[in-house]
């Protein structure tokens, strides 16, 4: 390769090639022969489009364009934010992809821009799906001009640019401030924090709505200046909302902040911080084995110099690590006598604690399961439905956790389950399921219960939610019937949740909702304990039938 290239200029040809390839890799399904189709992504797009159509119905509720756009913008930012939290770390700092492109003559600015744009592209795909119907439904809002769909498109696009720019900026800034060794740990907590901000931030919007005068958010509220969805809603209103003159002093600054920050963050991230990004990428090459090999070599050399044999060290029983103390190990052996189930429990527990990819997919979502109890705690007057919402959300947690634990970049390692003598996946499934319950569901339930007990004086909700709680362990078995469950066995392709899992989540949520309502109703009419008794008998029977069904499934060979 010849020719001097400006190391600071973005190479457009390389940029195009990178964008095409990154998009294909992130969205393509995997097959041994032939091209996979991004079925998971297509399914997500459809789901978001349906959600958007439902949300867009607020346009018919006596709203103005600003209120409409703020609510839709809040939903879009939540979805964009959560999607970016899940994807950004892998997209920006993938060691595997660095092995492929790191030794090619691509400058850091081009590489960073390609990755940032692909992050933006995937996010736009989801937010635009969400806003497809509302773009047109918004025409029913007060003051909407005929070109509102175009204005809405512009505002949602800028919102996505802002979100992507902010995420990339923060990540790359982190590379400047934090050393290589601590980067992963700090980035993990940062992602969790960002998710919490997105989820709780979204909860602010319903509290801004003044129901006394129709269904309105007043642009004059001073702290709307701190709310990103309001900035872009202001822009949309200015473009196509026919705002009253009195609103202009409030809308103009908000719109200016939105546009300014979106562009400024993108510029800062790509132009000013690309050098730091390059240094972080270089450090990716220092990792596997470098330090471990040096340590090993130094130790071996020291032992030879001292005349000591390596044997005594190796002959000593290797110390236990991983799942914990001897007491915990004994308890585990008692509670999980099946060695395969116990091994799978340990595998899942280790990955939930240590693997960055699993943590990034799992922990940010915890915020969404705790949002209602926390809001009830902060604002008890508005927390009346928190127990109902909490139990419905918690019912989906085992299924969501099991799905997350199914995915890993190290999916090839799961072949071990296929050449080990396992007649079926039942023991493996139960081990992972129990780890999901112990380390995710139970803590969420306990924290929710404590917060609600402290927040709400009326404790009758406890009994109302009991029927749903009784069903939860049985609901967690659903994944075991939906095919061969093997942990860490599929590649984390974007949008890969699968129709089955989304339906499972919906079904469990509906069942939990129905049982909680039934519990509340039964309490009011005096047949509560009869309901509980009948449910316990039915659920026990269902539970054992499901266990038998799962155990009867044979592990099918690959086709």
């Amino acid at each position: 390769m010849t020719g001097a290239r400006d190391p600071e200029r973005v190479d457009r040809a390389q940029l195009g090639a990178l964008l095409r390839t990154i998009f294909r890799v992130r969205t393509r399904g995997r097959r041994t022969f032939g091209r996979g189709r991004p079925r998971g992504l297509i399914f997500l797009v459809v789901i978001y489009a349906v959600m958007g159509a439902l949300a867009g119905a607020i346009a018919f509720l006596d709203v103005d364009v600003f209120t409409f756009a703020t609510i839709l913008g809040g939903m879009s930012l939540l979805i964009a934010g959560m999607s970016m939290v899940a994807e950004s770390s892998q997209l920006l700092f993938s060691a595997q992809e660095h092995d492929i492109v790191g030794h090619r003559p691509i400058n850091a600015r081009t590489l960073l821009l390609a990755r940032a744009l692909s992050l933006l592209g995937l996010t736009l795909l989801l937010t635009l799906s969400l806003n497809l119907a509302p773009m047109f439904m918004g025409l029913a809002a007060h003051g909407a001009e005929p070109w509102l769909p175009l204005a809405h498109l512009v505002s949602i696009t800028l919102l996505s640019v802002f979100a992507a720019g902010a995420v990339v900026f923060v990540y790359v800034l982190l590379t400047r401030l934090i050393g290589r060794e601590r980067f992963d740990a700090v980035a993990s907590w940062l992602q969790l924090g960002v998710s919490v901000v997105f989820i709780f931030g979204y909860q602010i919007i319903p509290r801004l709505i003044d129901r006394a005068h129709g269904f309105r958010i007043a642009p004059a509220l001073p702290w709307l200046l701190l709310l990103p969805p309001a900035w872009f809603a202001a822009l949309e209103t200015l473009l196509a909302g026919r705002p009253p003159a009195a609103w202009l002093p409030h809308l103009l600054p908000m719109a200016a902040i939105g546009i300014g920050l979106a562009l400024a963050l993108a510029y800062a991230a790509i132009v000013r911080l690309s050098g730091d990004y390059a240094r972080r990428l270089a450090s990716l090459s220092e990792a596997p084995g470098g330090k471990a090999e040096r340590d090993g070599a130094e130790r071996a050399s020291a032992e030879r110099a001292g005349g000591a044999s390596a044997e005594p060290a190796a002959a000593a029983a290797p110390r236990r690590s991983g799942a914990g103390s001897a007491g915990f190990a004994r308890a585990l052996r008692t509670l999980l006598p099946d060695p395969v189930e116990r091994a799978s429990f340990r595998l899942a527990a280790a990955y939930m604690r240590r693997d960055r990819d699993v943590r990034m997919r799992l922990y940010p979502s915890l915020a969404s399961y705790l949002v209602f109890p926390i809001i009830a705690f902060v604002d008890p007057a508005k927390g009346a439905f928190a127990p109902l919402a909490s139990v419905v959300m918690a019912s989906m947690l085992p299924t969501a956790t099991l799905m997350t634990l199914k995915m890993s970049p190290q999916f090839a390692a799961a072949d071990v389950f296929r050449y080990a003598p396992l007649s079926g996946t039942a023991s493996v499934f139960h081990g992972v399921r129990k780890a999901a319950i112990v380390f995710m569901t139970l803590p969420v339930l306990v924290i929710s219960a404590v917060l609600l007990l402290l927040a709400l004086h009326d404790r009758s909700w406890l009994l109302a939610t009991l029927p749903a709680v009784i069903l939860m362990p049985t609901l967690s078995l659903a994944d075991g019937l939906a095919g061969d469950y093997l942990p860490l066995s599929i590649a984390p392709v974007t949008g890969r949740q699968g129709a089955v899992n989304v339906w499972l989540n919906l079904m469990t949520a509906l069942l939990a909702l129905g049982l909680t309502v039934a519990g509340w109703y039964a309490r009011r009419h005096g047949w509560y304990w009869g309901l509980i008794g009948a449910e316990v008998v039915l659920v026990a029977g269902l539970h054992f039938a499901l266990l038998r069904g799962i155990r009867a499934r044979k592990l099918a060979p690959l086709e």
Partner: protein
Amino acid sequence: MIRLENLAKRYGAQEAVKGLTLEIPSGQLVGLLGPNGAGKSTTIRMLTGMLAPTSGRAEVEGFDVVTQPLEVKRVVGYVPESGALFEALTALEYLTFVAALYHISEDAARGRIQQFARFFDLDDETLTKKPMSAYSKGMRQKVVITSALLHNPRVVFFDEPLNGLDANAALSFKTLITSLAREGKTIVYCSHILDVVERVCERVIIIHEGRLVADGPVPALLAQTGEPSLERVFNQLTATENLLARAEEFARALSQ
């Protein structure tokens, strides 16, 4: 003993393996060779019970791979080419986990793991404290090999086992598999490093485009083809024509 009868595997219109028939007696150390995409890994995956054949039969130690896959899996060990591991685990955790899949008790597993750790020179600290994401390729490969032998299988399939191993480890490994074969284990050794195969294996099977093209001891193959080395035998049987001339032409084109 491994027996294949017209074993075939098709993916849609594509035939990966086309009716392989052969027998490998117990205790034999066999090299399985073929160019990329020849069907070696597919064949091995069928013999380990991971992949269902499209047609034909195969038996490993008397167990049918289709109707008795569990029995097959109990007696085989497999070192896949990918060398993939659950990297968030330490080596000890991973090996203990694998042992549990074969219903080996933790105490028994630890004893065996210690032996392998001594053999491969993996120190205690590395084994128990470091996650395998911090291991070099060679260290990971040692763990993969150990995991394939923990349950004392009667048949072992090695697919590119020397990937990432340094010269000392590779020498140890070659000695190991020769010893394993002497103990009566059947070893199927898949590799592109032909001089190793030539020195270590008592028999070589060459597959090309899913079919068997050569099968026999190395001296017999050399005599049959009139070639001086296994590499040239391989080239004669599997390469496209005028390979050397084409390579020279390509190198000239690059420098223009």
